[in-house]
C-alpha cells in the first residue's frame, strides 16, 4: 500500500536559520508529490508540487523541494526561516489522476526568535 513518512514529528529552528523537512514515500512508480502547510486552526495551503521534469521545484514563500527517485524522497527546504513559517507541514502524494491524496503524519515547525 502507498504510504508517506515524515520522520521528524517536531523541529525547532532559530529565525534566519536554514530548514529541511524530510519526506519519504512508498510506491512502485513515481507519484505526484506535494507539500502543504497548515497554520493553527486553518486549512491546507499548497506550497509546491512535483509532477515531472526538473527535480528541484520552487514554491511559494521561498520554499523549494528536491525529488530524489533513488531515495524515494521529496524533502522541503528553505534557506532562511521566518517566524511566520511556524506551522504544520504535510508531505502528500497522489498516485493517479483524480485519486485521493495520501498525507504523511506531518512535521510541526517551531521558530525561535
Amino acid at each position, binding site marked *: 500500500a502507498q504510504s*508517506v513518512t515524515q520522520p521528524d514529528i517536531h523541529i525547532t529552528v532559530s529565525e534566519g536559520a536554514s530548514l529541511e523537512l524530510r519526506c519519504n514515500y512508498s510506491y512502485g512508480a513515481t507519484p*505526484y508529490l506535494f507539500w*502543504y502547510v497548515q497554520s493553527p*486552526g*486553518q*486549512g*491546507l*495551503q*499548497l506550497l509546491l*508540487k512535483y*509532477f515531472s521534469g526538473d527535480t528541484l521545484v520552487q514554491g511559494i514563500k521561498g520554499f523549494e523541494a528536491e525529488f530524489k527517485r533513488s531515495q524515494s524522497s521529496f524533502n522541503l527546504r528553505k534557506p532562511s526561516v521566518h517566524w511566520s513559517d511556524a506551522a504544520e507541514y*504535510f508531505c*502528500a502524494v*497522489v498516485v493517479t*489522476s*483524480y*485519486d*485521493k*491524496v*495520501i*498525507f*504523511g*503524519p*506531518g512535521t510541526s515547525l517551531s521558530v525561535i526568535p
Partner: protein
Amino acid sequence: DAGVTQSPTHLIKTRGQQVTLRCSPKSGHDTVSWYQQALGQGPQFIFQYYEEEERQRGNFPDRFSGHQFPNYSSELNVNALLLGDSALYLCASTSAYEQYFGPGTRLTVT
C-alpha cells in the same frame, strides 16, 4: 474566483446525533473529496464524489455518507456521532492531479 468554501466553520454536537457539513467546490471543478483530520494527525481520505456518485471511498464506516448535487456542491453526513468523530473535516475540489482545499469545518462531539 471564489475558492473552495465550507459551512459551517464550527459545530458542536452530542454523541448519537447526526450532522451535515457542506462544501462548494472551486468554480469549474466537478470532483469533490472529503477528508477527516484528527488533532495532531494528517488528513485521512473519507470519499470522493464525481457526477453525483461516490467514486472512491476510504476506510470509514457506513455512518459516513455523502451527496453531490448537480451544481457540484457536496454534503458530508455523519450519523450516530461518536466522541472519536471530533475532528477538522476538509473538503477538496479536484482538477486533474491537484486538489484545492477549503478552510474546513471543526466538529466537536461531546
